[in-house]
């Protein structure tokens, strides 16, 4: 049994909120730079060049990459041999988000009630997903999610008979409908299987996987490659203004499902696909 003070959780999450909003992970940065070299459209190349410039300015000036600094999605993988002291773990997570967004000059984009819409003024609450794992460590992933692309995400409850062709159609439909609204080039997170909510969570987790890391399952790896190619032939392009770079990656996660179903979730993220990971 290892004892961990929840103040450490708060502090880590505070720092991760600020870091994630000011710099992208190396894989994302490389993917955007590579796309800028390969893009066919002159305007598309200009836009991708501006995105590279934008990342540089964000780091230099400590100004968020995007003004939509997102709703904070936090994944907590908690080792079953960890004992927390110093207060509620859940409160500590939200406190980290509150401090990060307040001290880090990040935008407060969360409203208390979906209908009455009063801003909470500190970007809390976060959306927190826990899982209990073996060991005595805590792995924290903070993924601030912007809503331009979140709004274009979809869940499709397909029939088993729809099969892999149905999955392809669903993903391409979601991407085509998203078009310029989702700030392409996008990263497409896909969850296949599970239940209604499980496939959505898989799609969200797929966005956290590095864009240069392919699935370990052969047919999934092939599906990722085929969908990426098809998406990039759609013509949507950088900023939706035409071109050969519509997505930087398609990341797919799968899970067992029911004999009667084939759930598919498509969680779209813009090119500002932010996340940080820390192990305490």
């Amino acid at each position, binding site marked *: 049994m290892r004892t961990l003070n929840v103040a450490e959780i708060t502090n880590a999450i505070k720092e991760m909120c600020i870091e994630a909003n000011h710099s992208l992970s190396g894989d994302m940065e490389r993917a955007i730079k590579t796309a800028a070299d390969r893009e*066919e*459209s002159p*305007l*598309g190349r200009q*836009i991708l060049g*501006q*995105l590279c*410039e*934008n*990342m540089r*300015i*964000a780091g230099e*000036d*400590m*100004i*968020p*990459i*995007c*003004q*939509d*600094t997102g709703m904070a999605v936090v994944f907590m993988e908690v080792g079953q041999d960890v004992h927390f002291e110093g207060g509620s773990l859940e409160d500590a997570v939200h406190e980290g988000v509150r401090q990060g967004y307040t001290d880090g*000059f*990040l*935008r*407060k*984009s969360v409203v208390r009630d979906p209908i009455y*819409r009063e*801003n909470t*003024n500190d970007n809390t609450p976060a959306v927190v997903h826990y899982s209990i794992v073996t060991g005595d460590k805590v792995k924290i992933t903070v993924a601030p999610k*912007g809503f*331009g692309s979140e*709004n274009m995400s979809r869940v499709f409850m397909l029939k088993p008979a729809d099969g892999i062709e149905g999955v392809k159609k669903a993903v391409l439909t979601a991407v085509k409908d998203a*078009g*310029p*609204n989702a*700030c392409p080039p996008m990263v497409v997170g896909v969850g296949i299987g599970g239940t209604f909510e499980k496939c959505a969570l898989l799609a969200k987790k797929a966005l956290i996987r590095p864009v240069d890391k392919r699935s370990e399952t052969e047919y999934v790896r092939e599906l990722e490659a085929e969908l990426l190619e098809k998406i990039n*032939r*759609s*013509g*949507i*392009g950088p*900023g*939706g*203004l*035409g*071109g*050969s770079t519509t997505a930087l990656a398609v990341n797919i996660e799968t899970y067992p499902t029911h004999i009667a179903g084939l759930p598919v979730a498509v969680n779209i993220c*813009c*090119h*500002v696909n932010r996340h940080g990971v820390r192990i305490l």
Partner: protein
Amino acid sequence: MDKYIRVPFDGSEAESLSAGNYVYLSGIIYTARDAAHKRMAEALEKGEKLPFPVKDNVIYYMGPSPARPGRPIGSAGPTTASRMDKYAPALLDLGLKGMIGKGKRTKEVKEAVVRNGAVYFAAVGGAGALLSRSIVSSEVIAYEDLGTEAVRRLEVKDFPAIVVMDARGNDLYETAVCKYRKE
């Protein structure tokens, strides 16, 4: 073709722009997004005045991140314009000449753009740090309680944007995508 434009627009200059033009805007623009548009619509319904002169002006669909001390504004890129589609035609009919945002618009907005000789610009979504460098000053002029969604008066210098929808109803989102589609 790059064009340098003064805003608010002078006369019918907005009509002379064409979809695909790359422009640099200098002058004064106003920010408003979801909540501010809702309030402006309510004000119009009650016969009250809007918080800024709409005629010949440009609205930027944007809610910035907070400014660090000594800076005019935080990150300041466009938000998705379609959420303002419900409100835009009424403002265009009052003389609004330009909108800056990102993403597709409805048929009703396109018709109002054509009817009023207006223009819809896209700024590069997700380039809020870069775009903030074109904003010289920012002042909240209305609905301060809305936080990032308050109406701001921005002074901009060479703010980069692309004409997506022009006064003749051309739509770059449709034409440019067709050009690069391989099916």
